[in-house]
């Protein structure tokens, strides 16, 4: 069951081989059985899931053609879900039950998808290892001593271990792609503005983008179809029309030009990871693609630029968590200032506090020009790099991360090493272009992800490229033994 795709399950649901209620019960049972080892869920919403499954069975019986109808999925715990605890993996929101639904989860529900629960993550999406969670670290299903990546680590681990058919994630600096890479699944970060941010608890508003995490590009296409498109509740959401994301999955890749940025294959890239990526690129050449070396010269500046812009926006976005209206409030505050200081000091974890401090500093009078404005100038340069590159090639490929999943605790004391994890993913967010991570082999028994970057609003093309690769290879069908054994 663990390797069943949305497409095959949709067929079985319509053939009445299985009902959505049965399918949902199976997944709930697997979560109960296996998640003790992974810690991938913060909340499992059994009752709501089963009620939704009953409704989905009726929807299917009445002839619904939605691919997602009756499919059990999980949501990263920063999408507000009406009536379901939404914590952002923070003590700050340990008691927060939203009375409203995010656009992403609402649209998936409208498509008939079942909400199994809410997945673990780095607190407020700040982290690359899923170790920064009030609810504890998530384990990588391929090796329980390793991290699943972050910040959407719970979603990635749950999909990889077969604890949901697919999941939602969000990607601010690589938070869909890097955990997808570490856990051997397929993840898509859409173009900024392709998917509404309404009801998604903000980390860095100008970078945050929701996307699917699943077992294949085809499954990602089904989910994107449901969640993409204009939303009047989000002013930054694009009015550009969506495409049919499954229609051209099988289009041949002959003539596809692939750019390999030389900066993605330099120092710091693990040799085994590099080998896997090079092998994957050869596979594309077999499929008819041509390859050329290109340059994204400002890659190295993406880290300082990102780590100014993201914390700056975060420092403001997270100001609303003040203990006044909802969420955590300290015990017996003696006055207003005490309430603010202790509620925020006790409610936020260390990494969140660190980024709030960094952002506050960068926006302060006298530092704003040197930090925030300079970071924005670099951001424009990085964007121009991509625009120029896409004048030469159709897609850009490279590694998602310099290494495979690292050990739990290995980088927690070295923030710079942790931040360097994001070197290949950050620039995509700064530019706002879409990118995917797809399984492309293994190094030392751990999955390696290939990153495919596309031009603005070229999601259909990316999914086509990824799908053709997955038709020719079987990396995406591999399962961790933990999942197989259950």
């Amino acid at each position, binding site marked *: 069951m663990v390797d069943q795709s949305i497409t095959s399950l949709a067929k079985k649901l319509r053939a009445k081989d299985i009902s959505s209620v049965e399918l949902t019960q199976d997944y709930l049972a697997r979560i109960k059985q296996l998640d003790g080892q992974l810690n991938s869920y913060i909340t499992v919403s059994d009752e709501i899931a089963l009620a939704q499954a009953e409704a989905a069975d009726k929807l299917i019986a009445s002839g619904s053609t939605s691919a997602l109808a009756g499919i059990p999925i999980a949501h990263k715990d920063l999408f507000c879900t009406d009536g379901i605890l939404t914590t952002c993996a923070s003590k700050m929101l340990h008691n927060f039950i939203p009375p409203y639904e*995010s656009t992403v989860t609402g649209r998936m529900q409208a498509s008939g998808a079942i909400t199994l629960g809410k997945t673990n993550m780095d607190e407020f999406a700040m982290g690359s290892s899923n170790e920064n969670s009030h609810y504890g670290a998530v384990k990588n299903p391929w090796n329980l001593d390793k991290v699943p990546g972050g910040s959407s680590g719970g979603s990635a681990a749950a999909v990889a271990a077969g604890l949901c058919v697919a999941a939602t994630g969000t990607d601010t600096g690589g938070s869909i792609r890097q955990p997808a890479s570490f856990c051997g699944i397929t993840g898509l970060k859409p173009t900024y503005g392709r998917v509404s941010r309404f009801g998604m608890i903000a980390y860095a*508003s100008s970078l945050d983008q929701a996307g699917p995490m699943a077992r294949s590009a085809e499954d990602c296409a089904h989910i994107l179809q449901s969640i993409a498109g204009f939303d009047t509740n989000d*002013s*930054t959401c694009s009015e550009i029309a969506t495409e049919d994301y499954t229609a051209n999955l099988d289009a041949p890749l002959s003539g596809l030009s692939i750019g390999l940025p030389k900066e993605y294959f330099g120092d710091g890239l693990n040799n085994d990871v590099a080998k896997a990526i090079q092998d994957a690129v050869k596979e594309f050449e077999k499929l008819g693609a041509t390859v050329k070396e290109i340059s994204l010269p400002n890659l190295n500046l993406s880290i300082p630029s990102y780590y100014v812009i993201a914390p700056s926006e975060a420092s403001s976005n997270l100001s609303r968590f003040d203990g006044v209206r*909802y969420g955590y409030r300290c015990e017996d505050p003696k006055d207003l200032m005490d309430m603010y200081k202790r509620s925020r000091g006790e409610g936020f974890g260390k990494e969140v506090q660190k980024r709030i401090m960094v952002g506050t500093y960068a926006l302060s009078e006298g530092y704003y020009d040197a930090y925030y404005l300079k970071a924005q100038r670099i951001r424009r340069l990085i964007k121009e790099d991509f625009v120029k590159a896409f004048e030469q090639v159709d897609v850009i490929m490279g590694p998602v991360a310099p290494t495979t999943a690292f050990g739990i605790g290995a980088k927690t004391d070295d923030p710079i090493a942790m931040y360097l994890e994001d070197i290949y993913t950050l620039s995509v967010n700064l530019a706002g272009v879409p990118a995917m991570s797809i399984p492309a082999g293994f190094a030392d028994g751990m999955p390696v992800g290939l990153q495919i970057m596309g031009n603005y609003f070229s999601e259909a093309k990316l999914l086509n490229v990824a799908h053709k690769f997955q038709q020719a290879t079987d990396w995406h069908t591999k399962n961790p033994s933990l999942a197989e054994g259950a």
Partner: protein
Amino acid sequence: MNWEVVIGLEIHAQLSTNSKLFSGAATSFGAEPNTNTTLVDLGMPGALPVFNKEALRMAVMFGHAVNAEIGMTSIFARKNYFYPDLPKGYQTSQMDDPIVGKGYLDITLDDGTVKRVGITRAHLEEDAGKSLHEDFHGMTGIDLNRSSTPLLEIVSEPDIRSAKEAVAYVKMIHSIVTYLGICDGNMAEGNMRCDVNISLRPKGQEAYGTRTEIKNVNSFRFIERAIYTEIERQADILEDGGKITQETRLYDPDKDETRSMRSKEEANDYRYFPCPDLLPIELTQEYVDQIAANLPELPKQKADRFMSEYKLSEYDAGVLSATRAMADYFEETANVAGNAKLAANWVMGELSKYLNSESKDISESPVSAGHLGGLLVRIEDNTINGKTAKSVLQAMWDGEGSADDIIEAKGLKQVTDTGAIEAVIQSVIDANPAQVEQFRASDEDKQKKMIGFFMGQVMKASQGKANPGMVTPILNKLLKG
């Protein structure tokens, strides 16, 4: 020393949109706490602002009205600070690229001179909520109904030189925004609030002195008083060789004094940066031009029209166009009465006396413009005389109905029957033989002076109902025998 006062004003005008600046919640005043709110106004996690285009239209209207440059690309910025009634921990405002840039307006001072005051800028921003300190047993309640209500902050250049000029400026802004219909202008409800920046410098010195800012003054009278007391306070300090501390102060109307709220050292660093949840506002020239073409009549244009169309004096036209409510009231009264000069006299005279005595605005007048016009019609057609009309107005003020109702009910209709008037005059002549004798013995000049006595007696005897225009010739005829 001889001090020159330098004043700059920041006026917050609440725009009269139906919904809030960034949400669909209603902006109505006086609703139950926290009922006029959406996720956005409550600062809920994941809620995003959606800009109300109506506020944009209103801001552009204002820009045109003060001859300002319109920001073709303007940007919302976040002003970050913590306060319990600021639900997001930041106020969405505008910093570097406001919707309205440099402009000016002309104010007329008491001596009739016209002064030009520069407008530095005007920008859109959202209001905060309200903290309620009563009824919560030592705790503070938060009402977020006002949260995200649209404000236009209008910043003047430091061109103002006295309290009187400041009040004239604020009144002109008030007049413009109400004429444009973009602000209700009700200062008591906080529709318009004013921050006053004041400094003193020795006359002739170019450099500005250290300024203080008096926050949130909310009536014309308080603005004047606050400025007077602050000037006095600063002058006392400077005269004693002291230094002014740059700080924010509050005006206490009960004590008629300003007191310190916070000094510059304690001031927030607001960490402004462009709001990533909102796109820059890009305007087309067509949009801007269309608003300019459809701008309603402004105070100055209205006054000019009153002079040409109704032949009013410059002074009268100025008074009657001072507020849109006043101008509308006058025009309706004039149209009903059919005599603009008479309408002007009554609105500025008798009616204003009543309004002033009860501190009411013309918009709150219990006598409608239609009713006052109806009263003037009865003066015009000689049904009543001016003196009687004053008593009818009193009755109208007291809510006794229209002029016709009151004239009818009280039997105030003027006597225009020649026979009846003759009879009254004859009775007066008969009752005052000595005076009649004296009159008849006097020369013409003396007689002219004495006629007033008989006139008064006749009006008294007729209980004011005799038509004075008819009494005079008959009285003259009968007295001369």
